[in-house]
């Protein structure tokens, strides 16, 4: 009988009865062939690979992180709750020490879902990783968490959620936003005033091959993690960098993904995108599971690898070397130009957010209190073209007295204003209110 070198948990929720629409890439059979391959390989018979049963997440799990407009029921389906719940199952397996790492192969994905949710963006409504991380923080008292988002698309939702959190290091490696949805994720996006340098974006040019990804991982991501010293590493494991993927332009292979996972060694990996359902996902997922379990992946290969895989062009190799050099200078060697911010000062920003799937236009106005003592309270006034005008107030875990007070004041003030709803997310007292 085969043994896993590292005990590995697997949560598999293919949601065979859920699709965004009949011909949408995020549809019923997306993980069908992955399941076929996993079953045929006999991966679940390997001693030390343990499959867990999913359970739905509750609205209380979502309220820790999202402001759902008008409420959770309106923006989620059962499948969203089960997908997020699957991540909670994976988290419990790891944090209770039953396994060394776990992979939540769930759908729908989540990394484009932001803190305020009016609907579906980039196939996502609920940010599975964020729901999971806040559950872990609440239940297991963990603070420092690193998210490494390896999906081909910029993890703009996760970035938005952790923009102000100095305890969460968010690193996104993705195809350059000038060439792909959602069009964000540039190196100058480095985090809010209280968390400057905690958001790190690594945009790579189209046709980047596995050499490029592994180079970035080795030269930049691993040193960044070493420096941050997280208690937990989460991998947003999108698989759309694959050379067979129909909606992106990257050049990654199953073995590349396996090598990346083996080197990164995330505590928990959560499936994100990946739409080459027949000729990439089955092999990539098998590779990742085996890599997590510490097994030899040298026989994992796509059937068309030898004919269709092209090595990375040399000009791209050069471009990536320069980029990594520059980012090392900024994030590892003290070159980050921070914006000075006075204790107690309230910094504001406004922005527009577009929900591609649901065609929603949202306008946000955000205020955050600069704070050296805690991550800082913030509020978001959000208006959508669906007629919603809400105010959302967040008091972070470990908030100082001043931030708790200003949060309460903003909430009070908001209830007297002309908002359709006013929300309070008080992580210190565990109070989640809505008018």
């Amino acid at each position, binding site marked *: 009988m085969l043994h896993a070198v590292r005990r590995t948990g697997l949560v598999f929720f293919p949601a*065979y009865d859920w699709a965004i629409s009949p011909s949408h890439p995020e549809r019923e059979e997306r993980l069908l062939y992955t399941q076929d391959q996993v079953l045929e390989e006999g991966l679940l018979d390997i001693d030390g690979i343990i499959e867990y*049963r999913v359970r739905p997440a509750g609205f209380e799990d979502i309220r820790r992180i999202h402001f759902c407009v008008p409420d959770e029921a309106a923006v989620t389906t059962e499948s969203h709750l089960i997908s997020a719940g699957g991540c909670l199952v994976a988290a419990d397996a790891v944090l209770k020490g039953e396994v060394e790492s776990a992979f939540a192969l769930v759908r729908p994905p989540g990394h484009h879902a932001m803190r305020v949710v009016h609907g579906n963006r980039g196939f996502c409504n609920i940010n599975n990783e964020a729901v999971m991380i806040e559950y872990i923080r609440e239940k297991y008292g963990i603070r420092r968490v690193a998210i490494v988002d390896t999906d081909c698309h910029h993890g703009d939702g996760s970035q938005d959620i952790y923009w102000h959190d100095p305890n969460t290091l968010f690193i996104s490696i993705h195809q350059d936003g000038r060439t792909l949805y959602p069009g964000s994720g540039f190196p100058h996006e480095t985090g809010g005033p209280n968390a400057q340098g905690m958001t790190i974006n690594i945009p790579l040019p189209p046709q980047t091959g596995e050499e490029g990804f592994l180079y970035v991982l080795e030269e930049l991501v691993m040193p960044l993690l070493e420096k941050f010293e997280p208690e937990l590493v989460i991998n947003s494991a999108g698989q759309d960098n694959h050379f067979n993927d129909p909606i992106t332009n990257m050049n990654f292979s199953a073995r590349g993904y396996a090598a990346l996972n083996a080197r990164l060694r995330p505590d928990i990996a959560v499936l994100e995108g990946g739409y080459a359902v027949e*000729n990439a996902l089955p092999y990539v997922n098998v590779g990742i599971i085996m890599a997590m379990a510490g097994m030899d992946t040298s*026989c*994992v290969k796509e059937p068309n690898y030898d004919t269709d895989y092209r090595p990375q062009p040399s000009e791209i190799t050069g471009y990536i070397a320069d980029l990594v050099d520059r980012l090392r200078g900024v994030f590892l060697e003290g070159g980050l130009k921070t914006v000075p911010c006075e204790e107690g000062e309230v910094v504001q920003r406004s922005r527009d957010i577009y929900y591609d799937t649901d065609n929603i236009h949202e306008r946000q106005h955000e205020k955050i209190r600069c704070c050296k003592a805690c991550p800082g309270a913030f509020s978001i006034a959000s208006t959508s073209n669906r007629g919603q005008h809400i105010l959302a107030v967040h008091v972070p875990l470990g908030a100082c007295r001043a931030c708790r007070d200003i949060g309460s004041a903003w909430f009070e003030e908001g209830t007297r204003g002309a908002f359709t709803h006013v929300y309070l997310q008080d992580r210190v007292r565990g109070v989640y209110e809505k008018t």
Partner: protein
Amino acid sequence: MILGLDVGGTQTDAVLIQEGRVVAAAKTPTTGDLLATLRIALENTLGHVDPGRLVRMAFSTTMATNAIVEDRLDDAGMIVSSGPGLNPEWFSVGPSYHVVDGCLDHQGFETKPLDRSAVMNAASSILNAGIPVLGVVSKFSVRNPWHELQAADWVGHSFSHVAMGHRISGALNFPRRIATTYLNAALYRLHKNFSDALIHILREKGLSGPRYLLKPDGGTIDLDMSIQRPAQTAQSGPAASVMGALALDGCEGVTLVLDVGGTTTDMSVVIDGTPLLKPLGIRLGPYQTLIRSLLTHSIGIGGDSEVRMAQDGKLKIGPVRRGEPAGFGGPAPTPTDAMITLGLLDAGKRDVSRLAMEKVGETAGWDGAATAERILQGMAEAIAASARAFVYDINAQPVYTIHEVLADQRVEPTSVLIIGGPAPQIAGYIGKALGLPCRFPRHYGVANAVGAAVARVTSEITLQADTQRGSVIISEAAVENDIDAGFTMDQAMSLGRAVLCRQAAINGADEKGLEISILERQAFTMIRGYMRTGRNIRLKMGITPGLIPEWKRGG
């Protein structure tokens, strides 16, 4: 009249059933000579019965199991083609295992042709090693058996028997397909010899009715048909006990069935008369197989388990059986001695049993009766703890659709049915330990033989239709038909039903009134880009384990 015969580790039980009632039962010690044991058991049971009145015979034997656990398998050569994934050398089995080039993908498309010269070379090296039986397996052969058929076609004529992977089961699992195919090849000759000898004995006794063997899934298969897949007759003992419980009690609601034997206690769950099946397949010795089986769990505690007082002052029961209970002249005190001491069982030498109990309880300062009482409580509590863990595991099985998550049908036993020799004595203790009503049926001591006697033929088919590939496959029944783009679920259902009925009839089922259940039914539209390219239909149907109509008529 129906004859049922169950070969157990220590006892071979036989029953005669007439008009739905057990009219004779006999226990015969099991010896090392299986055929001799069968012959004596037949003589003990049939007595003066007119052999012409026997309309059906069913046997649960240990032939295949013993051969596997005692490592008495024949050598079999293996030719395996894999393609990408796990390293196929990791699943090497037998003395002559050969990996050859060739690859099918998960839809069954050939992505690399089977390497003919490699297959020829492998075959000659197997033959040169003096091995006359062959197993051929390819990855995803249940989606397209072409490579296995090709290999068998190229080299099969040189071998006395060829086992093919796709014929075992439609389930996906390449390593298990390799192991199961190997077992079918390596057991072929042994099973053939056994069944020839059994047929000879039966003929000698003038018994000519239909003959069946019990399988681990609680179903039966015609003895002649079992020769093609001998491994599927292995380890049918636990299935016999479940089917016996079902036959003698009916098992309404959610019933936890416990078969308390001499060495072990087997447990299983029956829901409204249908036993739970294991999701994938049974483990036989070191081999994980694709052989369908009932979901059972076994613990090393029975009436003859050794009892001792451990250093920490706690009673330890099992897992070892030293022999007979002390009261029967055995070497060690057992729960049976406790029953004898308490007057629950009128057998053996009561004073010897009591003395053995006193000795166990000596250091704790308990007298014989107090020790005996504690032993039976301890035995019941250990069985209860194991049963709770068993039920917990059943409920932890993964599910894959929203519907299943929301339905969340948890298995929660509402009563306990106990069979096996000590059933009446232990029932009260187990009922208390589990907090559930606990009962035992008539003929509890020979329930396994009754189970074997009245279990119906089971059969299962797995249909996969892929309109993109233009084919529908039912792997177990060697069906592969071309289909057009408009192939529907309705067509799949009627094809599936027809093939299942045919298959069941071949396996010995009476074709009237087959109860077919749909085990899985899914249809997916396949999309490439944003275009519909085809339909993928998956269907699993089977004749689930149950009782022959004659038994129901008898009531």
